[in-house]
Every structure is written in C-alpha cells, then in structure tokens.
C-alpha cells in the first residue's frame, strides 16, 4: 500500500476543499481500500466523509431521497424504501454480502470500480488503469465482460446492482463541488469507455455526491430485480435485469427495463420498453420484447453465453414484475 494521509472532515464545505486539494473521498472503504492494498488506486490523501450528515433516507413529495452515506443494509431494510421502491431494496440485497452491505455506502456503491480481473493486476495491460497500455481482457479471459457499449479499448461491465435499479427508475443525483450544486440523471454519471476508458464518470474534480432522488410512481411497487449468477449470493451478476411494469386493463402502459452484467455502464433497454407498450403482459409478449435487448450486442471470445442469457433474464424479470401488478 502506498503511504497516504487521512483527513477527517465535519462539513461538506471542508470536504470539498480537502478534495479540491487532491484528496479522495472515502466512505465505507470497501472498494477503495481493497484497491489501495493492491496499489491499483494510489491516492496520497483520503478525505473521510463519514461524519457528514448524508445518511438520510426519506420520502419527499414525489421522490424517495437517499443520502450518499446511507449504508446499503439500512437502505435495503428501510420500510419506506421497501414500500415504494421494492426494486431498490431487492437490488441492494442481491449485492455483495451482509458484512459488506453494513459498511458500504450508496455513494460508494455508485462510484465503485470495475471488477475486470486485469484491472486489478498491476502487471496486466489495462487501458482503464493505465491509459494506452492496452486491454488484456479483450483477447484474454473475458467471460464476465460486457456485450453492449464496448470499445476496442475496454469491455468491462459496470458492477453495481443498485445503479441498474436506479437507472431503471429514472433516478437523479445531487452533487456539490467547488462550483456549487447540480443535479442530473444517474445514467449520465456513467461514460461509455470509447477510447478513454480511464474516464469512468462525469463528476467534476472534488464533486461530492450528496444524495439520490428516485421519483415515486405508484406502479413502481411492481419492481423486481433478477440477478443471474452461478452461486446463490455474493457474486457479481453474469446478467441482471430490473423490471417495472404498469399494467392497466390488461395492457402494459409503461415499462422500465435496465440490465447489469452486460453493459459497460448500467444499461437501460428503451427498445424493450417500447415493444411492451400496448401489449398484454404475457410470457410470449415479454419474450418478443426482450429479444430487442441484444440489438448491437457484440460478444468476445468468452462471453457469448450472455447473448442467450440476456433476453431470458429480462423475460423472467418481466414475468416476476407482472406477478406483482
């Protein structure tokens, strides 16, 4: 581990100032410390934000608001979250392990780094870790990699389950930096790798995530998160799907579908959603709609199975959501 200093901060202003001086925010540390041990991340100073009052979870007029420092476990267990946005609770509970969920914050979860094995090995070529060095995965072991949004430079999936759920629910995020506060859709937090995979997100220097706002819509109670993987828990998704359905008079009025494990960022599926509108919620219609998910998908040597698995996962998630409407 590189030597580093830690600053304890008590206010957002102090935090932003420290980060502006080159400090890196640390919340639960479950991603950052891991990567620092491997020297994949080498911050020379950390800004411990755990004392900031950003641990709120509350229902405002039309939105569920979740503070960046709320822990995964407490959000998942929160009665209001479970009532209005069961999709979020389910996505959180399907992630990591109980121990990690007790430590891990919402802000940290959205900002976690990729799980591509080569990213975590200093001696492997990785454009994301060291720009221009090449990508060891594209011609190497890539069974866990993305089939959507990849480039010649990088094909790592974004690993967060929560992000998939939030993207499906049109959530926004409030951030504050040296230039003040701004708010934007969470999907815009994530960049495609293109030829600059080392640029993962759109936060500006020293910007601090304050909270996440999830619009409340009555039909969101149908939300389900399905995570497909070889072991029953404590594994990242091979493929996952968040599905929300608004069915009235036996016809789909609105649908929200987003997927994990397949894209270089959380992947919203507008073509699938569009194909569902006006249809009856039957398995056959779900299948037909889900077939749109693989438009433009490109498999690498080891992840071709995801092209078969993706529509099946969406179909099943839609069936599960359909059971709740």
């Amino acid at each position: 581990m590189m030597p580093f200093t830690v600053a304890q901060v008590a206010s957002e202003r102090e935090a932003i100032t420290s980060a502006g001086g080159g400090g890196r925010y640390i919340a639960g540390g479950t991603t950052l410390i891991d990567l620092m041990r491997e020297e994949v991340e080498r911050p020379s100073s950390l800004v411990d934000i755990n004392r900031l009052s950003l641990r709120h979870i509350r229902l405002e007029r039309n939105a569920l608001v979740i503070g960046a420092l709320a822990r995964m476990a407490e959000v998942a267990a929160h009665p209001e979250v479970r009532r209005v946005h069961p999709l979020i609770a389910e996505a959180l509970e399907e992630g990591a392990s109980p121990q990690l969920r007790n430590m891990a914050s919402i802000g940290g979860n959205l900002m976690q780094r990729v799980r591509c094995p080569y990213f975590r090995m200093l001696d492997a070529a990785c454009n994301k870790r060291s720009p221009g060095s090449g990508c060891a995965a594209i011609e190497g072991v890539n069974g866990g990699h993305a089939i959507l949004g990849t480039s010649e430079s990088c094909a790592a999936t974004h690993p967060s389950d929560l992000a998939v759920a939030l993207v499906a629910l049109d959530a926004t995020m409030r951030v504050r930096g040296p230039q003040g506060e701004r708010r934007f859709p969470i999907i815009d937090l994530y960049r495609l790798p293109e030829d600059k995979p080392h640029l993962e997100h759109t936060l500006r220097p020293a910007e601090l995530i304050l909270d996440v706002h999830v619009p409340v819509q009555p039909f969101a109670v149908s939300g389900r998160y399905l995570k497909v993987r070889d072991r029953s828990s404590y594994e990242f998704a091979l493929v996952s799907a968040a599905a929300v359905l608004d069915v009235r008079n036996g016809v789909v009025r609105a649908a929200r579908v987003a997927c994990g494990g397949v894209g270089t960022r959380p992947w919203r599926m507008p073509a699938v959603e569009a194909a569902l509108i006006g249809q009856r919620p039957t398995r056959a219609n779900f299948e037909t709609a889900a077939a749109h998910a693989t438009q433009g998908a490109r498999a690498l040597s080891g992840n071709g199975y995801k092209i078969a698995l993706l529509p099946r996962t969406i179909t099943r998630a839609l069936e599960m959501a359909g059971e709740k409407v």
Partner: protein
Amino acid sequence: MSTSVFGQSIPRVDGPLKVSGGARYAFEFNQSGQLYAVIVNATIGIGRIVSIEATGVEQMPGVRAVISHLNAPKLTYSPHKGVIDPAVGERLRVFQDEQIRFFGQPVAVIVADTLDQAEHAATALRLRYDAQAPLTEIDDPRAQPIVAQQTAAANARVAADRERGSADQAFADTDVKVDAIFRMARENHSPMEPHATVASWEGDSLTVWSKSQYVLNERAELAAIFGIPPENVLVICPFVGGAFGTSLRTWSHVGIAALAARVVGRPVKLALTRKQMFLDTGHRPRTDQRIAIAATNQGKLTAIIHEATAETSRYEEFIEGITNQTEFLYSCPNVRTRYRLVPTDTSTPTYMRAPGECTGMHALECGLDELAAALDLDPIELRRRNEPTVDESNGRPFSSRSLLQCLETGAERFGWSQRNPRPGSMRDGRWQIGWGVAGSTRGAPQAPADASVRLLPDGRVEVASATSDMGPGTYTSMAQVAAATLGVPVERIKFELGRSDMPTAPSHGGSWTMASVGNAVRSACLAAQDAAVRRAVEDPASIFHGLTADVLHWKDGTLGRKNGEGPRLDQVALLRGGMPIDVRTTASRSTDIANRYSMYGYAAFFTEVAVDADLGIVRIRRMLGVYGIGKVVNPRLARSQCIGGMVGGIGMALMERTVLDQRDGRPVNAHMADYLVPVNLDVPTLETQFLDEQDDAVNPLGIKGIGELCIIGVAPAIANAVYHATGKRVRELPIRIENLLGA
C-alpha cells in the same frame, strides 16, 4: 474396550480455544525483533529474469533487505523427497537462478520493519524479463502427453496402462454402451488460513512456526535446503485453519521465510496473500478423461475403458490414482485403464482432498449413470447387478464391503422409489427437479506411526504424536482413544501434536491419521499399562512388589490381580508422587494383512437439485450421504467431516475452477470473490448416516478413514441429478450456467 468414550459424540476438546481466539495459528507466533517479508512473484509465464532494479527499493522506508537470485546465498538443497513430494523431478529452488518456470514463481523477497512497508516495496520492485510463450493447457495442440516414470510398470500403484481381459474388443462387440469425455477444471484448495511461516534462527538452529499438515517433512525439507541436520530444525504448528492438502508439501515460501530470517539475522514473518495462494502452493490438476462402458441388455458390464490425462509441471511429475477405483469397484471381465501426464509451464499440482479418486470417480459414476439410462435401468439396480464378490483387480477378498448397503440404506431414507426415472419429469413450479445418486470408495490405509504416553503421578495422562489437526478433530479423537484404552475419563487426557520433536507421525492427509496415529495411541496406551504393571511389581514400596507381572493387569483405569482378589490401585495410588511412566511405541499394519485383503471404505450420495432451465441455474435442494467406514470414533466429528465433504463436492460440481490466461499462465480469478466456493445459501440441510460396520482386518481399532471418501461421489451425484432434471449431460466440471445454456 470398556463402556467408553470411544464412539461418543463428545464436543471438540479444542473448541473453546478456537471460538475464544485462544488457539494460535502460525502467523500469530510473534517473536521479539521480528521483521515482515513479502514475496515478489514473476509476471511472465516462462523465460528468464534479465535485470532487477533493487537499489531504489532498498532505500525505501523500513526496507531491510531485497533478496533475489542476484544476492541470495547458494543454498544446499540436498536431495529430499517425502512421501508427499513427487518422486520424479526436482523441487523449485528459490532464488538460485534466473529461470522462470511458471507465472507467479517467487523471484524476490522484501524484508521490512512493517508489513505495509514490505508490501509497498514489493510493488515498487522492477524486474525485466525475457519472456516466452508458455504452454498452460493440456488440450493445447502443442501438448505432449508422457508416461510418468513411476507409472511405467504394469504393477505400479498408479499405472500408465493396465488391462485385464480385452476391453476394446469387448466394447466393440457389445450393443449397449456409452463413450464420453469428461473435462474437469483445475481447483485450488483455498482454505481459510493462508500459508504462513514465522522463522527464527539461533546460530545454526532454526525454529519455524509454520502452517503445516506434516511438520516432520517440513523439518526434513528445511534441513535439506539449508544443509543442516534435521535435529537443528524445530517445526511448530498446533493449529491449522483448513488445508485440504495444500499444507502437506513444504512450498517455496517456507524456505524463503527461513532464508530471509537468516539474511537479516532477525526473526521474520511471512504470510501469503490470497492471490499468492493460487501460485505455488499446489492445486488439483486439470484433467480430461474418457470413460467408455458397455453392458449386456441385462445390465451386466462387459467392458470398461477409462483414460485420463492430467497436467503436471515441467519440473516434477505429480501423479495420483485417477483410474484405480475403476479397476475394482464393479465386476467386469474386461477393464483397461490409461493415465498420461502433460507437462505444462505451470507450478506443480499436489494432493487435494481425495486426489485422483475424486476425479476418476466422477467420470466412472457419471458414466454408469449414462449406461443405466441407456439400459433403461435404475442406476442402483445396475450397480447391484455388477457387485463383485472379490476385488477383481487382484483377486483378494474385501475385508468388508458396503457399497450396496450404503446405496440401499440411502435409497430407503431418501425415498428413491418415488423417483420418476424419466428425465425432466419432476417439477416444482418453474423448477425442474432431478434426483441423482453416485457411489464412493476409497482405500482404508494405515501408515506406521509412533505415539508416546506419559502417566503422571497426579492422574493426568499426556499423549503425543507429531501429527496435525487441520479440522477433523485429531485432538479430540486421539484423547478418546487414549481414554478408552486406559479406561480413564477423557478429561484427564491431554493429546498434543504439531511439533517435529514429537514421536513420528505420517502426513496428516490421505485419510489415514485416525487409523495410523489412532492405533499408535492405542498401542502406546497398552504399553503404558504393561509398564504400570512392571512398576507395580518392581517398586519395593508397592503392595504388589515381588509378584510376577502375569498375575496383574490394568483394567478400567486401575491395576490389580487378574483373579480379582485384593486391592486395586489407580494411577495416583500406583505412582505415589514418584516418577511418571513414559512409553513410546509404533503401530503399523502387517504386510500379511496388507497383502491378504482389499480394504476400502464405501459411501453413497443422493441429491435433489432444482434447475431453472431457462436461466441455467442449478440449486441443491437436499443431500444425503451414507457411509461404511468401519468404527466411528466420534459421530459428531465424523458428521462434521462429511458435511464438509458435501460442501466441497458442491463446490467441485458447480463452482470451483481456477482459470488461467493462456498467454502467460496467470490465474485470473485468484480471489475469493472470483474463485467461487459455496456460500450458505448454496448449501441445504445435509444428512449423514453411518452404517454399523465392524472390520477387524483393517486395524485393531477397526477404522477406515473418512476425510476423502466423503467428497468422492458428491459431484457425480449432483451431475447425475442435473441430467435427471433436464435431460442434459454436462460433462464438464464445474457445471455452470454457461454450460447448461449451451448444452
């Protein structure tokens, strides 16, 4: 043995120590003035080191030494091969030359004041290499299978080629047959406790506190590396946090810790990281197997052909008995086996729980299941029709044989008769349900072992042997044997293990600790009783002084006349504050017994799986194991072993695989988040049942051993259940979503 603690489910005697943190593991033996060592590993698959830029690193804060082939002392490396070392080839000699034989080979060690400083310096060390392309996979077109030297003779324990009858002809001449290839992934042991060694020198004497299943071999290996007498080396390891075979051999890091301590002249602590646990501490070799079985329409086997190919390293021939069970488990006149190695540019594989047997039996038991399906016959009935009366590989009678009884008992308890044999016919909502069965067998070996017993004047009894307890409960079961043999309460026994200056014990692996050390403890306790009788007649102050020894005996913890007349003395009364009684004995199996019988334990596994065929997900619903293992010393501990075996088997069947990048041989999933082992949610309620079995031939205690038998057969029972659920045969382990979607 009297009404005794033998066979009772007493709790682990070391349980309180373990749960309270009082049990000390290797890395916890802090020494004053100690430094920390961190190994730097090669980042190429094969080639040589061109340069090492150590100067900057040597100046880093806290760094005391950077040791590599450039500055390491030339070490003696006398010839030494323990039973757990491959007999052919030469072990890796660290820091002795610039050659790189596999990805991750240790190339340097950093010694620093703190662990963080050593880790940081290790990351900063720059090496330049001249790299070549390694060969890492046995199915690489460039791979060259070889006959391992030790397997060349037809009567070798593990034979490259062996045949009885004429298997290929019989196979060709029979109508009902299966012929299939099974591919099994490389596995790493991945125990909880990482390898760790604390090394400390005093002059030419070395003490190591080191994670080991075999302290005596560790002593011999360290003595050989440094060219010092074995008496100068003391290896201490009272507790092992799981090992599964990875701590049988003495891997390079142990020598590195000792070397580092020698160079800096201070005690040194070294632990491997989880990633390093995948580099040079052995693994279950990757294998490809062909199993071809033919039977008459009545289900009588006519031919079995079993061919296995396994990886080994370029510098050692690691062999294991993959096809041996095939030679005797079922009655069949024509059997041919073949075993080849493919040397690859990777580190040497090693024994991993049920080495060879686990692998070979997967192919055999799946093959039999496929044959049963082809015959439209119940798989248990198929086995019944091919039950041998003698071991057909050598003509010897079985000392006891319980395969059918295990199958039948299990079938009854599992409700096997309710199974609809048609694949895909059983459902629970979206889930397709499958029931599978497989048999298991493993030898019941006994190795020569020594034990010492000391009867103390205060009534306590100290028993010792240089064995180990990696989890099966050696501390407890040995105390039970001693207590039962002596007829004293188990609380009075203190069994000690894990020091190389204790009486000789064999490796703590191969399921033979209970049979070997247990019988040595028994013999030593019997010898202690004889010594007590001698003391009684020789001690002038004894009330029995002057009697002939043969009129006295030790029974139920007291000494007195055989005819029951007169007083009886217990240990305290006998020793009256004088000298303790010390004895030390050896126990071993006579060659006569060894050559007379075919001695094996047996088991049967039944499992119910649920398969989501759309998504390729397999979940285990329930599992039952029935075991014929002779006498069970402590059913609670034995059950614990057995459920551990089932969990290991679930991992083998559905999750575990070490994936190498073929370009440089690096393991890419060397991480507990990526090398999957079952979590709680993957493991349903597991049931176990021990048959009441008496086998007087195996050894005086009637023990067969269970640690490995209990994982063999689990994976095929699962694979067979997956077939029953889906109608798909996935002949690759682990069976993952990807395979099921593709099948």
